[in-house]
């Protein structure tokens, strides 16, 4: 306080016409913060997985190396990365306001995501059918819940994409739609980021 200047002729007390912040920036920052909190959610799940990934926690059931297949995981990796790249390319079309381009990118992203989820659900269904469901052992509980949490995120992303496919033709690229498209891009990319961690940690190092 000692360094405070005294007011002079140039001192302004009010800021009429203050433009404020940009809605889009606030929304993307807010959504980014939500994603960091979601990242902490996955962090906790990874911590749980790491603790439960021991032979003892398999309780006589299968261990990681018996249930994951890194090669199949690689196809999944390509599918999900393809999906996020397709979506990202859709946002490149957004720069020119190209509605058809944006929607085409979204549809491509959805198709690849369904392929990715198909692999995942097939794995889980096969395991369950063999009697190695999530209630078999502590280890399988951790494995199933980690994979399912990621898959549920993906399903919400797909619902979100469907909503956007309705809103783009209906509303055009207004501020809200653009903010949602940008947020969805982060959300979708985030699923790929989580998958990279899952793939490396569960499918490779764990196996």
């Amino acid at each position, binding site marked *: *306080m000692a360094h*405070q*200047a*005294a*007011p002079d002729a140039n*001192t*302004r*007390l*009010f*800021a*009429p*016409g*203050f433009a*404020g*912040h940009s809605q889009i*920036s*606030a*929304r993307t*920052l*807010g959504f980014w*913060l*939500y994603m*960091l*909190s979601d990242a*902490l*959610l996955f*962090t*906790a*799940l990874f*911590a*749980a997985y790491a*603790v*439960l990934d021991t032979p*003892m*926690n*398999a*309780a006589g*059931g299968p261990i990681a190396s018996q249930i994951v297949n890194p090669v199949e995981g690689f196809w999944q990796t390509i599918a999900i990365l393809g999906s996020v790249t397709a979506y990202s390319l859709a946002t490149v079309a957004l720069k020119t306001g190209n509605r058809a381009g944006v929607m085409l990118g979204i549809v491509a992203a959805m198709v690849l995501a369904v392929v990715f989820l198909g692999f995942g659900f097939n794995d889980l269904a096969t395991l*369950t059918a063999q009697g190695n*469901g*999530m*209630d*078999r*052992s*502590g*280890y399988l*509980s*951790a494995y*199933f*819940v980690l994979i399912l949490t990621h898959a549920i995120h993906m399903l919400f992303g797909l*619902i979100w994409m469907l*909503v956007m496919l309705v*809103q783009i033709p*209906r*509303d*055009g690229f*207004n*501020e*809200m739609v653009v903010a*949602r498209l940008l947020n969805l891009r982060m959300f979708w990319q985030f699923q790929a980021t989580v998958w990279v961690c899952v793939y490396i940690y569960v499918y490779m190092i764990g196996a």
Partner: protein
Amino acid sequence: MQVHVPGPWSPLFGRLTLDQIPYNIPILQYTFAGAMLAAIVVVGAVLYFKKVGYFWREWLTTVDHKKIGVMYIVIGLVMLFRGFADGLLIRTQQVLANGPNAPGYMGAQHGFLPPFHFDQVYSAHGTIMILFAATPILTGFQNIVVPLQLGARDMAFPYMNALSLWLTAGAAGLVMLSLFVGDFSAAGWVGLIPLTELPYSPSTGVDYWMWAIQISSVGTTLNAINMIVTIVEMRAPGMTWFRMPIFSWTTLSTNIIGLTAFPVLGVALALLGADRYLGTHFFTAGMGGNLMLYTNLFWLWGHPEVYFLILPVFGILSEVVPTFCEKPLFGYVTMVAASFAIAGVSWVVWLHHFFTMGAGPDINGFFSVATMLVGIPTGVKVFNWAFTMYRARITYTVPMLWAMFGLFLLLAGGLTGMMLAIPAVNYTVHDSVFVIAHFHCMVLLVVAAAFAGVSYWFPKVFGFRLDESWGKAFFWTFSIATLIVFTAMFALGFEGETRRLDWTFNTAWKPMLVVEEIGMILYVISLACFALMLVFSIVNRKKNAAGPDAWGTSRTLEWLTPSPVPFYNFAVTPQVNTRDELAWRRKHGLDKAQPEHFEAIHMPSNTGMPFVIGMLAAVWGFAMIWRIWWLAAISLTALIVCVIIRSFYKNEGYHLQPEEIAAMERDLALGSVVSEQPDRSHHHYSHVEAH
């Protein structure tokens, strides 16, 4: 894969049967009668005075951060009262049930509460006080104060702000409902594992606890996002980071904790839920589960949560002390640094909650020393407040008295906290009431700061000060009661009394248990003083009417705008020139300066959607608790559909025209209340700009 639950289950009502309504327990009969009476009075009054529309328009659908803040605080105070009633039951039970020959009343072997009921009471006490009283009250202050301190129109996301509130309210409703439908968790507010697993807690109590916390913590996380974005993006022009008031700084640091810690709690509870609902083995003792994993995840959130509560308290003290010292806060920059140091260190200390579980000395040593590190920034803060008082001119108003009491509690809590951080000491008192006394010093610091904040900011929100003499009576009875109860509790800790005892077997504890009970009676008297304070304040509201700067010595921007604050906050956004802007303006005679002309203000429209979504979340929680699958499916689908519908809204708010603002500012200067928004429900679409 659905797990088998004991007891009947029907597709239509799930586990819900008529005998789940505990109509034959006398205490609950009285509680129910009281609750119904209160509900009839409130609802009757609303109907009689034809205020249904008013409540819907002005409160249930509001997106105004000040009203949302007020509702948070009201919810918090109601739950504080409920939690206090639980505390009173606990203390009374322990006095009555002391010693082998203690008589039993009302069907209990000792005392008047059978264990199953007592265990619910203490579990509810902890859960409510931490998550449904302290958290909403502090969130309420942040909501009211931070946008005003920053010179902003509202929060960054007004709609999401309302959503956070109604999720919290829905969750609080679930906790209250557990009194009359089914039971509450009997396994501690921390959810002692594996006691919370289905074989050991077969009833729906744990489910109530779990889903209520889960829903409210979603609200808290959303609120954290909102607060951080508000602080980052919405500061008035000229408000650089180091001109920001300390309360906003602590709000930022506390919400960083909220944002990152609550998801971990969500995972801990969701995995417990998977165990209870899907038959997984995360935390079971057998089949490859790891029960300490739950404890680890819970405290990974639980310890940051402590600082989540304490940091805004430090912020409130840092606003109140300088105001009534008529001096700037000593060591502003170190205060900011200390807040972030506390937030950072809070992430590496969680294991001190389970030093006794058998981990090696190197691990206990690491977490012990990390815990002690928290003492450094906390010590810095105490020193800073003390030096703020140097060469001050201190007025002992009610908020200042609460702040001084808070400092005292912080010293007591700090001393005992350092003890508990030492494993060698911790082993002797780990689960004793010494720990209870320690953390009650800390949470009563939260309560003290909450009352400091209530009396400090009340005139800002309602336009008149609270009655000073009843406020002092409330302060003295409350603080003396606190000293009595918790000094006795520290003594009991040294006498070896452990926590959560339904029957206190050692007769040597009797004298201190009686002392505690005397303190509890004084607490009851202090509550009466609180009620009288509110009554007399409302009666004398004309006499205690406050101008913009209610205390005459306040220092921050919220005191620049009229009291009560008009719904648009500032007619013209202020330009910030320095730290403690208002004190600077007052010093140079500029605090009464008014803007020359007004410009249109963009305001968001009210919406009922957050209320609907919050209530749907509560219905979904209820359906999950009772395993009524059809209702759960419908309410969850409805909730998602509501979120989607909301995204199709085109209403982007309305513009308040300069002439309207000028008229309202004139009215405010004449002293009439314009906190009600003009009804825009019919013509606001005309103001939406087209794209």
